[in-house]
């Protein structure tokens, strides 16, 4: 199973995402922003970082990278895409996911281990979790506050498209404690927390994040 990870100028967590895919048992394929070649991968991860220095708005310039034109077309046809942190911001700027991510409520850059509840286990990226499962995964961002119109929020809630929710305390002012969402079809998932940083006890607070990567491999096998 070939899973791609895109490197943009300013990506930070691309090598961690590649490593998480390998640890889950997949073939990790590096992809480059300046090429529109998806190299026959079966799913793609947009990693965390500060692509284009977060200039203009987080993800606003990456959205127009050549690789994104291929990803947007593929995603609209059901191709699985996971955006993590900056990757989530790129997905909202691309309009593959609704809403936007703005400056954290208290303006702090927050870096901590975050308890979360997994609410949607019907996506190819979360199918290995059980609904309502509590996991601990790091967050590390300055602009992670999820905002959407009242209509978009009620659509997300009514259609069960909230994938992850902050448990206990809301760290950043995100509406409805939203930490991750999916599109109507369920193939595109964006999360602010970093599952690729919680894949083994030596380097992370838990191994809870690895399930994102084992889930996609199982989902692809089942197709």
């Amino acid at each position, binding site marked *: 199973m070939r899973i791609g990870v895109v490197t943009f100028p300013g990506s930070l967590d691309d090598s961690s995402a590649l490593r998480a895919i390998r640890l889950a048992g997949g073939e990790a394929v590096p992809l480059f922003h300046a090429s529109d070649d998806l190299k026959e991968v079966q799913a793609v991860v947009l990693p965390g970082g500060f692509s284009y220095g977060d200039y203009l708005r987080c993800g606003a310039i990456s959205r127009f990278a050549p690789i994104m034109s291929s990803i947007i077309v593929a995603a609209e046809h059901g191709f699985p895409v996971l955006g993590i942190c900056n990757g989530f911001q790129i997905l909202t700027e691309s309009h593959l996911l609704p809403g936007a991510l*703005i400056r954290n409520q208290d303006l702090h850059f927050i870096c901590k281990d975050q308890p979360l509840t997994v609410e949607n286990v019907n996506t190819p990226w979360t199918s290995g979790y059980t609904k309502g499962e509590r996991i601990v995964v790091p967050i590390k961002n300055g602009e992670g*506050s999820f*905002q959407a119109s009242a209509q978009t929020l009620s659509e997300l809630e009514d259609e069960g498209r909230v994938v992850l929710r902050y448990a206990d305390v809301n760290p950043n002012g995100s509406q409805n404690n939203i930490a991750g969402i999916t599109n109507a079809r369920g193939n595109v998932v964006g999360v602010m927390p970093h599952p690729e940083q919680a894949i083994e006890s030596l380097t992370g607070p838990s191994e809870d994040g690895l399930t994102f990567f084992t889930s996609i491999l199982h989902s692809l096998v089942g197709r």
Partner: protein
Amino acid sequence: MATIIVEVMLKPEILDPQGQAVAAALPRLGFNFAQSVRQGKRFEIVVAGEPTHAQLAEVEQAAEKLLSNPVIETYVVKVEK
């Protein structure tokens, strides 16, 4: 030569933590005039000659597509001589 100005502001219903931080800092310096502060962005785009209607229409498109995020922001296009 003229300058086309694009001003981008967060929509009124979107929380503006930066503006709030500025509003909170003003009284600490003895400035007590502000009821609230909202912070935005200003783009100054220099074009050769007088901007044409076609150019302004293109700037509108760019403002919609790149300079602002219509989900959370509004924009205004003006010409400065």
